[in-house]
């Protein structure tokens, strides 16, 4: 039995996951079941960061991945944003990088700037 804490929402349910059957207990909602199973098979995380912004009110534009990416790719994804420069105006949801590091997720803007 693996004991993990669900991080999908602030409730933070204490889950137990059976390593063999991948049966999840302790979750208060279905999302916890998915999280518990993923965590033992292929853990994923959302990533948020910033990229350089030119011509805008501020020097950084906040961005995020459009979906969760494999946990072990977190550093690679953030590193890949280093050289990127975006020009104002940008809108929430604009795609900044397509299919970042081959994860299938895009990097999208999270603020109008």
């Amino acid at each position, binding site marked *: 039995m693996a004991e*993990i*804490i*669900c*991080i*999908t*929402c*602030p409730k*933070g349910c204490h889950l137990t996951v059976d390593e063999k059957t991948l049966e999840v207990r302790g979750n208060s909602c279905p999302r916890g079941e998915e999280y518990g199973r993923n965590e033992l098979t292929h853990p994923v*995380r*959302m*990533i*948020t*960061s*910033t990229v*350089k912004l030119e011509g805008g*009110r*501020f*020097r*950084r534009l*906040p961005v*995020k991945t459009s979906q969760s990416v494999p*946990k072990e790719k*977190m*550093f690679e994804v*953030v590193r890949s944003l280093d050289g990127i420069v975006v020009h104002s105006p940008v809108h*929430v949801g604009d795609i900044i990088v397509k299919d970042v590091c081959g994860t299938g997720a895009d990097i999208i803007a*999270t*603020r*109008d700037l």
Partner: protein
Amino acid sequence: MTKIYDVIIIGGGPAGLAAAEAAYNNGAKDVLILERDQTLGGILNQCIHNGFGLHYFKEELSGPEYAGRFIELVNKTNVEVQTDTMVLDITPEREIHAVNGQKGYQILKSRSIVLCMGCRERTRGAISIPGTRPAGVFTAGAAQRYVNIEGYQVGKRVVILGSGDIGLIMARRMTLEGAKVLACVEVMPYSGGLTRNIVQCLHDFNIPLYLSHTVTKIEGEGRVERVTVQEVDANRNPIPGTEMIFDCDTLLLSVGLIPENELTRAAGIQIDRRTNGPVVYENMETSMPGVFAAGNVVHVHDLVDYVTAEAQKAGAAAAKYAIAGEPEPSRHITVKNGNAVTYTVPSCIRMENIDKSAEILFRVNRVCGASVIQVMSGETRIAGFKRERLAPGEMEKIILPRVLLDKAGEEITIAIEEA
């Protein structure tokens, strides 16, 4: 003749935005938001991480996205906004004194006011650590602003004092940006932040969390070079012989937030010593009639969704006051904090404003296992709510139906009974 606004809102963070929208939607015609920053959105603009809006929008948004949704809603109304405008004073006549670059010194009049000034971080001075005074000591929120908005790297080897959410979020952010976070040090035997943040910000990156430890010395010439961390006993006194030295260039402080209430105090509004925010009634009205408050200025929230809900209540009540004035007083019920409960919001329920039910928010002062939240009126129990776990880092909410309140006497107590 000077214009009289229906509702003026001080502060344009998530609380101010939701209050403005609610006031407008509840019939207030002239609504004005005064914000001292360049933009609306408040602290959310620097909280670029995910985790906002799960309750309210049923999806996980970053701080700027959450703020953006409300800014858009407010832009669709005819609510007036003045940014770069600092409110200096509120008088008992409900006049607001404010300054900005374009209009200079203004005295604004309003039928009702909503205070949404948020909170600020406790600083090192407030907790006084011995040692030299080198550069490299930041509050976690200041570091967050430098990194996320201004684009500066604040340090390479980092120790974090305090396990509040902002510190935890910054531990992850700085690690992903290439810094080495050596430790997170918490004086209490439990963490001050949400469990999910301990997992996704510390465990994910193998950052050790030292509970019942504190920083006892900061050293460095010009810039921080090392800090000493020591275990503390039950009375929070450092235990000799437990010293650990960390070579680092940065110390982040995430030691709590204090509601920003200089304006409130100066206006003579009653402050609750337990929250450092104004004493509020069931509809978020303060001790000054027609002046309401919501969000972190009242009590420190960990979830912006609750800030929004509270501010909508305040905004709606402010609109009602502006239009109809104060209702005829009827019965009042004082709400007291009992065993293991730190405070309650509200601290008094006026039955004339209760329709179907009243909401009570509170925090516990220690980690409790399986418990019942007991609502007592004298010796009689009027309601009980089961919880599997309660922690100081997580705000609790109970809803009391009017039928139960009708049975209560002049005072009710919220207390925790551990199984």
